[in-house]
């Protein structure tokens, strides 16, 4: 159905008013409501595909406007199939079967026709289904869509528990053009009345005349329903207010802007306050101050020209006020921040009374996991794993400071007993690092402790130092080995111990540290699992799975490239990344594609031969070659194999792959001229051996038979 501008069409508005929806859930629900409403209208043939729609949200509402909704569904005629003609008529007279069919179809017996099907002649009736009015359809269908919206957490609120929703529903607006559509949900019938900002506008009703007027009507009631407009206004207000003090800049924080966009209904230049705190608090570590501001107060941190934290904060309000009013709000927010900073300072000073080394003993009282024991036990295990990994690195001449690593391992978890971490759990590790520094440990020790939980996500940085990386690898590998040992592997979407994140972290560390760490996944798994070989194999498999994920998700490699590369080796993470990039670069070339396709053919031939029990010769024997193309392939591939081997050893994979691609003429000629499955057993097994050798020589970078080639 193409869009027609006619009087039989109107825009449709739906708004659902809800008590404050959790900020983290709004964006998803807004998109889902839009998708569901548009999908329902398409399904009901009230709009065509590609229809124009807009969606809106604030903490107290979700809304969608769909343009050009038909006033009615079009009538559809449908052919119903009835009984076989043989049964329907006896001697030219309609039998009860025919009569019943006509009745069911709602037509007279005389209006029945016959159709020929592969099974014979059958009665048929053409039924015209009258299209229903849009309002009727929407009123019937929309409630089901509302009930189907996904929420991370829902609640009941009405007696008898008739429905679940994220928070209690308080009103609905449903307008088709100027007419109300009486959608019923959660005990309400939709009307044309909405509500504005609680405080700035108050409780008066706002009548929405037409869908087109929705956003404007709300704007006059101090609600900016368009999320992007609100986000933009908040950013502008932050800029505007920060500029009132020379040289200040607010610290960009997309996640915080997003959160505040979903915590507010209104924003203007008078909706942000720039507050101050005493410069004396800057003696506390910046990490602590920023965490208090961002995570606990939703304030933006402010920096001076040199990028240093300045004694200011920015609070975004769901309000606006004149200068005097803003002064009151600024004062209140500053007071809260002061109390928070005081707490942090109190904890910081209190924690210094018990140095980290005295806290080692206290770790016996902090559970890591019921069966794996305390953090003291964990630290001991991590120490063993770390020294195992460090030993391997030292053998391979990677510079690291074993003393600093040893200290870091022992002290790593001690900050869990500190008041500051109990209060600001997100600062675990960081606080330990800061305390270690303040208590006179070396930079290397402090940094390793500080960085131990990195990377928490695919976007996160990895450790700055080798000692830090080894500590983190050991910690994460020990957690995985311990949990796997208890049979607590992640299953499906359930990963309560975040083991996938831990394994992703291991892969990312091995791939991305400034100093390359030549450790294979097998080595990491083996060192972490001690003598338990079966467990080590499981853990290695899990890490290899995460390597695949890393190549695809973090490095953006295509599925087939990842498969090809990992089939050629999934032990050395960095090497796998380098090989994947090289394959991606060359895979577009025609020669490479042809060689890949040929390799796939070789692999198939070998597989079929093996199935039939036909064995390849142990060595390729040139004297058994009967065809020039066969000889040419053997000679050329032998030459290229040594060239490729040299390039591979230099990890110059790109060049190696280009060399392999030059084999194309010989490969093509071989398959044009030679039949591998020769009747002569000696010739045949020699040819199979040739294919095996060629595949073996050139599959060290990637198994090209996995590459998907066009055509």
């Amino acid at each position, binding site marked *: 159905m193409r869009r027609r501008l006619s009087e039989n069409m109107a825009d449709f508005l739906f708004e659902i008013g809800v*008590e*404050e929806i*959790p*900020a*983290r859930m709004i964006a998803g629900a807004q998109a889902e409501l839009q998708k569901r409403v548009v999908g329902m209208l398409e399904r009901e043939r009230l709009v065509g595909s590609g229809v124009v729609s807009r969606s809106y949200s604030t*903490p107290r509402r979700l809304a969608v406007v769909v343009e050009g909704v038909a006033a009615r569904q079009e009538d559809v005629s449908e052919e119903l199939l009835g009984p076989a003609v043989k049964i329907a008529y006896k001697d030219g007279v309609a039998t009860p079967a025919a009569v019943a069919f006509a009745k069911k179809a709602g037509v007279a017996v005389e209006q029945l026709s016959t159709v020929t099907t592969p099974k014979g002649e059958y009665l048929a009736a053409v039924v015209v289904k009258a299209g229903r009015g849009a309002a009727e359809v929407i009123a019937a269908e929309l409630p089901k869509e509302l009930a189907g919206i996904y929420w991370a*957490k829902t*609640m*009941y*609120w*009405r*007696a*008898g*528990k008739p429905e679940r929703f994220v*928070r*209690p529903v*308080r009103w609905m607006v449903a307008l088709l053009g100027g007419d109300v559509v009486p959608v019923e949900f959660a005990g309400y019938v939709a009307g044309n009345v909405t509500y504005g900002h*609680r*405080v700035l506008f108050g*409780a008066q009703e706002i009548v929405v005349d037409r869908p087109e007027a929705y956003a404007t009507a709300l704007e006059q009631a101090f609600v900016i329903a368009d999320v992007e407009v609100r986000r933009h206004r908040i950013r502008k207000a932050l800029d505007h207010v920060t500029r009132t003090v020379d040289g200040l800049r607010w610290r960009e924080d997309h996640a915080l802007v997003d959160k505040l966009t979903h*915590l*507010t209904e209104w924003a203007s230049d008078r909706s942000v306050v720039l507050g101050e705190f005493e410069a004396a608090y800057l003696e506390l570590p910046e990490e602590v101050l920023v965490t208090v501001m961002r995570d606990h*107060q*939703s*304030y933006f941190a402010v920096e001076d020209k040199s990028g240093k934290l300045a004694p200011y904060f920015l*609070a975004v*309000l*769901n*309000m606006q*006020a004149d200068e*005097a*009013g803003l*002064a*009151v*709000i600024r*004062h*209140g*927010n500053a*007071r*809260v*921040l*002061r*109390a928070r900073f*005081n*707490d942090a300072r*109190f904890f910081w000073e209190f924690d210094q009374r018990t140095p980290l080394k005295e806290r080692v003993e206290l770790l*016996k*009282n*902090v*559970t890591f996991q*019921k069966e794996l*024991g*305390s953090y003291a036990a964990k630290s001991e295990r991590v120490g063993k794993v770390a020294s195992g990994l460090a030993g391997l690195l030292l053998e391979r001449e990677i510079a690291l400071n074993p003393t600093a690593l040893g200290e870091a391992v022992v002290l790593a978890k001690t900050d869990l007993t500190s008041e500051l971490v109990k209060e600001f759990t997100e600062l675990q590790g960081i606080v330990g690092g800061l305390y270690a520094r303040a208590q006179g440990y070396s930079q290397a020790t402090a940094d390793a402790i500080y960085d131990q939980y990195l990377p928490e996500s695919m976007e996160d940085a990895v450790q700055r130092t080798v000692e830090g990386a080894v500590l983190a690898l050991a910690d994460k590998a020990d957690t995985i080995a311990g949990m796997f040992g208890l049979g607590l592997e992640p299953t499906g979407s359930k990963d309560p111990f975040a083991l996938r994140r831990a394994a992703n972290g291991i892969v990312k560390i091995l791939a991305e540290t400034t100093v390359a760490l030549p450790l294979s996944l097998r080595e990491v798994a083996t060192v972490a699992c001690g003598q338990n070989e079966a467990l080590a194999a499981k853990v290695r498999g899990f890490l290899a799975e995460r390597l695949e994920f890393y190549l695809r998700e973090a490095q953006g490699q295509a599925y087939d490239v990842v498969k090809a590369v990992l089939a050629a080796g999934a032990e050395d993470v960095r090497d796998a990344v380098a090989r994947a990039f090289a394959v991606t670069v060359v895979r577009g070339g025609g020669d490479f594609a042809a060689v890949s396709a040929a390799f796939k053919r070789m692999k198939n031939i070998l597989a079929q031969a093996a199935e039939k029990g036909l064995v390849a010769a142990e060595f390729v024997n040139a004297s058994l070659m009967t065809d020039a193309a066969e000889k040419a392939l053997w000679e050329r591939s032998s030459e290229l194999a040594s060239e490729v081997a040299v390039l591979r050893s230099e990890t110059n994979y790109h060049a190696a792959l280009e060399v392999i691609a030059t084999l194309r003429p010989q490969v093509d000629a071989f398959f044009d001229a030679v039949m591998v499955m020769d009747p002569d057993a000696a010739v045949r097994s020699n040819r199979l051996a040739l294919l095996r050798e060629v595949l073996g020589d050139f599959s060290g970078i990637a198994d090209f038979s996995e590459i998907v080639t066009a055509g």
Partner: protein
Amino acid sequence: MQAIAEKKKALTFQELLFRLQRFWADRGCVLQQPYDVEVGAGTMSPDTFLRVLGPKPVRIAYAQPSRRPADGRYGENPNRLFRHTQMQVILKPPPVRIQEMYLESLEAIGIDLNEHDIKFEEDNWEWPVGGAWGVGWQVMLDGLEITQFTYFQQCGGMDLDPICGEITYGLERIAGFLQDVDSIYDIVWAVEPDTGKQVTYGEIRLAEEEQYSAYGFDYADVSKLWEHLNLYEAECLALLEKAKGFEAMDALALKRFPVLGAYELALKCSHMFNLLDARGAISVTERVGVMARIRTLVVGVAKIYAAQGVAVGG
């Protein structure tokens, strides 16, 4: 300047409580006195924890001193208390205008919403030991969390129907905000009408904070606390065992069965656990186990309370 002007007319701590009580009494709440057994939060008072169970509508409000031994700071920290005061409002079923009513209550204590920034931020409440949880918000006023607003969904491991709205005001925080003081101990508790002399929160409560912190952290006798816990637990379990005979009881015996007494014993255990915890006397292996023991008591009591309600009511 405006803040200073406000401070002069700001409510005293006790006037704050009067106003909130008046406000909710005017909206149909029965005013209850604070519960006289140690609780960690107003929710644990039987007026909330038990009354939310069952179908009977409830509107009740009370101030509840709440003890959290581990939060004690010997009176040295201006923002933390071993014992603070919650104003608890229970509305079952929650009225449609519950949020508006709450905002009106803020106006009633002198908070002009036109002059402040108020946000409802997601904050879900959970008390695993009580098998209780709800969804709701922390209400932020100029960046200060002044209220927990919860729609109770489950209690004692049982789904609630109807559910219940729970509003918990942090009285010290609100008073500190209204009076614009940086230390809880500087809050004006009352003003002598004749002389205008101020009585501060510190004068009334500092000694308690000092001494109970010292008791909880330094003096409490660990082995005796364990003994207390074991004794309370044994008695509570004995009552739970007797409650298995509900079916055989006549109406009077059933009505008089001391479910409420059993609940007090469970609360005592919870308080003993908190003391032991503050004392650092609960080891890793013990911790989870003791919590499970207390959960057995609390959830067990909730179950027999509901059963008794059904049996007596029906």
